[in-house]
């Protein structure tokens, strides 16, 4: 939705489930994206729990988890959403005078707009929702209600299994062939697929070191670091500014992605583009590990036209640094803005190879996969 269009914003506010105050100091360049004050949203939503009759509790739970940040990562968010939809379908009964197809689609759409309010959709979620709606639309009219519900739940199970879980296994197997003994592998932030690759290669007995690069404000790399150390991998930890210092030791860079777009641009956590650029400057191969269901037919040239903006207080406040935090009361100052980007777009020339469940492809082959394998959303 275009956020700089005042009419549409007002309309959506009327439909909104809970109150979201807009941020006071908005960055001009991002006026087309929603920027909210993050302090009161969670308490507001929690207080509305008993008032929301039309909301299925499973969907509400997922929404709260998104808002609180308990569930992060493209795969995890998608699976949580689909499981919630499964419960919705199981509990669903067609009201009299309406058809299953239309009513269920309308219900799903309303749940989706609630989830969007909690947190804007990731591309993987968007693709999953489109798949879901197309399966509902394609239901043969001869089926009874129970049969239809069973078929839909079955489809969701197959989707999760084939497109996410098995796809991850295939990716891990392909990528482990790219890890040799004596390698130094660099990864940025925390991607579940890359973590699986590292652990699998370690189980295979390959000798390698891992460099975990992390950045503010989320410090997602620390969780990954802890899990890798628990499994006995030898790790180096650093922050994104030191990437140029550490890159001369690195042999391969493994990165995760939120989505890969049709012009080969990788859309992933902010900072990935910096890491890929430095790796390219030092001639280190960059491998993106991404399931094929995350590919999208959109194209994007830079990180500004479409992005997600996080909490500006996360930037203003530096935990553990009281000398810097005297800035905190300044969030309302007119001239000062804080920009908390969540995603950025990595140009395709920095990426050597994309590892997907369809194999290892160059970035230029992404539109081919989108076109050939997406026809009618086949479950292949």
């Amino acid at each position, binding site marked *: 939705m275009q956020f700089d269009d005042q009419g549409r914003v007002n309309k959506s506010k009327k439909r909104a489930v809970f109150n979201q105050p807009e941020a006071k100091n908005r960055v001009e360049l991002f006026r087309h994206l929603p920027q909210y004050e993050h302090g009161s949203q969670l308490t507001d939503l929690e207080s509305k729990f008993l008032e929301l009759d039309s909301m299925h509790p499973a969907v509400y739970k997922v929404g709260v988890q998104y808002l609180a940040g308990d569930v992060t990562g493209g795969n995890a968010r998608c699976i949580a959403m689909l499981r919630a939809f499964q419960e919705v379908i199981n509990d669903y009964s067609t009201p009299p005078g309406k058809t299953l197809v239309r009513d269920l689609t309308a219900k799903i759409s309303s749940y989706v707009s609630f989830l969007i309010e909690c947190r804007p959709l990731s591309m993987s979620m968007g693709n999953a929702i489109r798949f879901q709606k197309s399966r509902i639309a394609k239901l043969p009219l001869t089926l009874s209600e129970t049969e239809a519900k069973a078929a839909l739940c079955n489809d969701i199970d197959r989707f999760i299994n084939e497109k996410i879980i098995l796809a991850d296994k295939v990716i891990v197997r392909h990528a482990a062939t790219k890890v040799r003994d004596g390698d130094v592998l660099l990864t940025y932030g925390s991607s579940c697929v890359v973590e699986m690759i590292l652990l699998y290669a370690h189980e295979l007995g390959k000798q390698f070191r891992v460099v975990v690069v992390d950045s*503010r404000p989320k410090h997602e790399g620390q969780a990954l670091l*802890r899990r890798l150390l628990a499994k006995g991998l030898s790790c180096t930890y650093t*922050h994104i500014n030191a990437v140029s*210092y550490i890159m*001369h030791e690195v042999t391969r860079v493994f990165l995760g992605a939120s989505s890969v777009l049709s012009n080969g641009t990788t859309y992933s956590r902010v900072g990935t*583009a910096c890491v890929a650029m430095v790796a390219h400057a030092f001639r280190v191969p960059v491998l993106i590990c991404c399931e094929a269901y995350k590919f999208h037919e959109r194209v994007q040239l830079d*990180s500004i036209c479409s992005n997600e903006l996080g909490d500006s207080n996360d930037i203003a406040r530096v935990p553990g640094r009281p000398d810097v935090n005297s800035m905190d009361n300044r969030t309302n100052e007119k001239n000062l803005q804080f920009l*908390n980007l969540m995603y950025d777009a990595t140009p395709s020339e920095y990426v050597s190879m994309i590892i997907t469940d369809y194999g290892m492809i160059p970035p230029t082959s992404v539109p081919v996969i989108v076109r050939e394998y997406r026809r009618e959303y086949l479950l292949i």
Partner: protein
Amino acid sequence: MPDTQALVMTFLTSLKNATARQTAELLRSVISQQRVPYTNQAGALIDAVKAVGEQLIAANPVELAVGNIVRRVLHIIREEDLSLTTAAIGELNLSAVSDDENDDDRDGNTTLSAAAVAAAARSTLRPPSLQTLLEDTPVSAAVPQTSSSGGDSEGKTADKSSRSRKLKHDVIEAVNELIQDIVTCHEQIAEQAVEHIHQNEVILTLGSSRTVSEFLFAAKEKKRSFRVFVAEGAPRYQGHLLAKELVARGLQTTLITDSAVFAMISRVNMVIVGAHAVMANGGVIAPVGMNLVALAAQKHAVPFVVLAGSHKLCPLYPHNPEVLLNELRSPSELLDFGEFSDCMDFGSGSGSPLLHVVNPAFDYVPPKLVSLFITDAGGHNPSYMYRLIADYYSADDLVVQRRAIAGN
């Protein structure tokens, strides 16, 4: 000498925050307290400065500004000495011309006799040659007593002591000028701000540098309208402080994380940063993260401008600067020790810890990524910086070490 030693010791303990100005002031007091012999005054001063300079550089080799100032002072001493000698020789030529006419007037004149000038010329610093190495005897004994009158030899000794006082005086004046230059370099660089910033610009900077903030304030004074993106510069987070200062002066500022630099740089017109040191090949030693910004700026064809006072220009060429000219800081700035104490165990069979934390303080930016250097001496290309070295430093001083005096 014990006074200077005490001064040097206190200086060394506070070397972490040493600035170029403090080094210059310390060397000035070393020079003023140094007793100089009647001949070879410059050599004695240079030895004294080298002795102190060696200690200063060894205490913190990464702080290149200290070494720069030591070398500047040595260069000043050599230059002053040279100019005094050429002035004396010039006077002698004049007096030789007038010799025929005023033979009696020479008594009480301050002109030096030819022999004394020759002795003085021997005592000034010359590039080491076989002759000077063999001639290590103190020069005062070699001064030939010419067939001059008593008044002449009185004039000689009086001249020599006044000349030695003059040398110290000149050197201290020049060092004062150097200190003045260091203090005012910000204003001189800021004067050039209007030439580079036009209306409706978007400027990106990383971390905090006083030169950069003065530069931007000067442009604001001249009514140029521009916006600034400040990258916070983890793990020191100096960018927050710079943003505060800029907002206090009324500039539109947006604070971003370092990871967002590549995302935002496509909308930036110019990158302006400060430097910790500028090496002789035009490379820049800057706070960590600068190489990232420079690469992103090159990719998007955004000019990368480095502001540096001339006291930051180092005559050394960088070899493996990421390691040799870098400082690794405490991991506690990145990881909380309390949370990760279980992972710091010396776990695996080899006995070495599984977790290493790397926290470098500086970054090296190669000269091909820099578009322009703006110094207090004007704007320069990176390929020109090596020529400026000849203005400020002597080739003899590149390695600051006392030469062992033969026959000790």
